[in-house]
């Protein structure tokens, strides 16, 4: 029983961390229409940044500044933001698939840089030597994981509320206007280039936060954590949940990650021994079928985007309608 609870806490922590990254992507793709194919670069920048700033000194590479945890985490987010700023200035003039290809390239370059730049980030060995905050006081066991989950959930809720307010504000309306028709937005005197860049950076900082939490949770990060598969997983979560809907983004994450882990567990438990050696391949097929099925029969995702044109405007509009009727 304790075992099950302990596992659920662990699962929820990973799912909540991934949810934050999916929320960041939702701001970029769901609300602003920016096709970021390099999620993992910003996720990784946050993770690596946090461990370099917050880790203990290591002999053969940069880092080990042992800064207090919250400063290291904010530093990781800032590094993700800086990377997004540079990448954004260079690539945001590109549209849709071109932007996707360019950002995908950035992510692959990021992974290769981390794999090869041993002096910067430990190379393929990865970064270790991070002391999880408050470990001395709380120990390593269940209590620690539970409190860390609460911390992560707190950040998830904060991010969620921030984004919900943002998209309901006039600024959110502007993001959607740019997504739907940039020329129209420009004709109203808006500067789409600047807004797109701002949304790109904001989304990437949120992904950086997720990366920082992820690296902290494992107290380790290596190039294997920033392979393109993570970008695809995060996209799958958003597509299944429903792009443009923050609730959908979070639900999609829990569902896909739940399906991913549960299918592995189920296959290892119930599949016959000869099949067990192929559980990995079977799992990929199962998840693939879910995503394809979703795209075929419910392309808007589990939770559709709720179009809020403008709260006050809508109220007036309805009143006028009522008067007319």
């Amino acid at each position, binding site marked *: 029983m304790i075992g099950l609870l302990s596992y659920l806490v662990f699962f929820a922590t990973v799912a909540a961390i991934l949810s934050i990254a999916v929320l960041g992507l939702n701001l970029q793709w769901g609300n602003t229409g920016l096709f970021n194919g390099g999620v993992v670069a910003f996720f990784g920048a946050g993770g690596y940044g946090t461990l370099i700033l917050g880790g203990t000194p290591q002999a053969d590479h940069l880092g080990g500044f042992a800064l207090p945890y919250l400063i290291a985490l904010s530093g990781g987010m800032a590094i993700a933001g800086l990377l997004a700023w540079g990448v954004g200035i260079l690539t945001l003039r590109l549209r849709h698939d071109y932007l996707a290809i360019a950002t995908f390239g950035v992510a692959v370059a990021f992974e290769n840089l981390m794999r090869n730049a041993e002096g910067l980030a430990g190379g393929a060995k990865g970064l270790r030597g991070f002391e999880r905050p408050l470990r001395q006081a709380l120990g390593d066991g269940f209590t620690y994981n539970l409190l860390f989950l609460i911390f992560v959930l707190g950040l998830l809720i904060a991010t969620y509320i921030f984004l919900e307010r943002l998209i309901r504000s006039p600024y959110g309306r502007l993001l959607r206007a740019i997504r739907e028709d940039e020329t129209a937005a420009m004709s109203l005197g808006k500067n789409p280039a600047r807004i797109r860049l701002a949304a790109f950076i904001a989304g990437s900082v949120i992904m950086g936060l997720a990366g920082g939490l992820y690296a902290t949770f494992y107290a380790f990060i290596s190039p294997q954590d920033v392979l393109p598969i993570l970008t695809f997983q995060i996209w799958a979560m958003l597509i299944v949940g429903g792009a443009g809907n923050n609730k959908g983004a979070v639900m999609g994450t829990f569902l896909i990650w739940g399906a991913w882990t549960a299918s592995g567990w189920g296959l290892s438990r119930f599949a016959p021994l000869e099949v067990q*050696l192929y559980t990995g391949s079977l799992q990929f097929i199962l998840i693939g079928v879910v995503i394809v099925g979703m795209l075929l029969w419910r392309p808007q995702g589990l939770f559709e985007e709720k179009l809020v044109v403008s709260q006050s405007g809508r109220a007036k509009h309805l009143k006028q309608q009522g008067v007319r009727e």
Partner: protein
Amino acid sequence: MTKTSFKRGVVAGLTTGMMMGGAALAQDCTTKIGAVLPTSVDWGKPIAATAQYAVDLANEAGGVAGCKVEMVLRDSQVDPKVGVDAAKALVDLDGVQMLLGAVSSGVSMPILTSVTVPAGVMQMSCCSSSTAFTGLSQEGKTKGLFYRTFATSGVQAAVGAMVARDQGYKSVAILYKNDDWGQDIGKLVAKDLEALGISVTGSVAINDAQPSYRAEVTEALKGNPEALYMAIYPKEGTSVVREWLSLGGTQNMIVANALKSDEFRDNVGLQYLGNTIGTDTASPRSESASAFVSQYTAKFGSEPNGPGLSNSYDATMIGLLAMEAAGTGATGTEIAAKVSAVTDPNGTPITADAAGFSKAKEVLAGGGTVFYQGATGNVRFDDNGDVSAPAVMWSFTETGTEETQYISLEEVDAFMASVK
């Protein structure tokens, strides 16, 4: 009256049934061990199959600590998230106290730091080679729970350099897999070669799954080396060697154990591999090693030639022996503490098969210690859970590979000291 007696009969029957069930349970109890291995990767499947084979042999010998052993296998997909989650599920939901895995250091490490060490579960890796584990252990952060049967890359790198010296090569180019194992071994072999006065004309990283390696091969061909050293995997190795030969590279090749594979030999063609010399940590000169090879061949229909197979076998066997030594219901910490009792050089030597396992059970039950003679040698762990090992040089043959020279542990150590 009839009703009552009927009831009584049912109750009596149920009770007997439950008691019998209880007794049967005690006999057929099952101890679970966990395995997190990359079964979705071609070379990962045989590693898992070999571990399962070792478990089957232990069950043939009557199981461990009075119980049958069930290995719950989970796929790591070479994805740290997935591997860590699988390990956590095995520890929390299945209650395993001994975990085999993983293969990649990038997966084994987060499992160690966030799952097994916090939970006090013993972790035994067949194939993780990163020097980071040694560092972590020296800092006291593994709590003695981590062991691996994969000899540190130093041994193979040294023997690779020894081959170059023995063959009289004056210049060597190095191609290494761009991961922690490859980067490590590439750097070590370059250092050893230079210490021997052999010039290294170039050292090029090989990334996984590229459609072509022409650029890398061209780079390595610069400086016109007399020989090529490769620490890469069969799939990439096949493409690399094909391009290397087609661009006029030499057939003098030295390869690490990762290329000891039938797939590689068949895909490149034996006629091009005549001057290829491989290195590996050694099969020992004991009956148990040949027994392992013949048993494995009988079971799987081919010699154990893939990377990490003997390591996986030994990792599983030693883990199970330690569980036997620690007794029923032992925790991970208690099992880890017993590893020294089953790899004790002063203990009774035992072979790596079902008969050896039965003998070990007798000796351990009598309070003695045993010396496991495994498929990778007389495995002995140092304080950090690392192993050193004797080495062999081998070459490809029609049926598999054949050993050309055996280098004992003493010779390996002496040679490594000489190139330091």
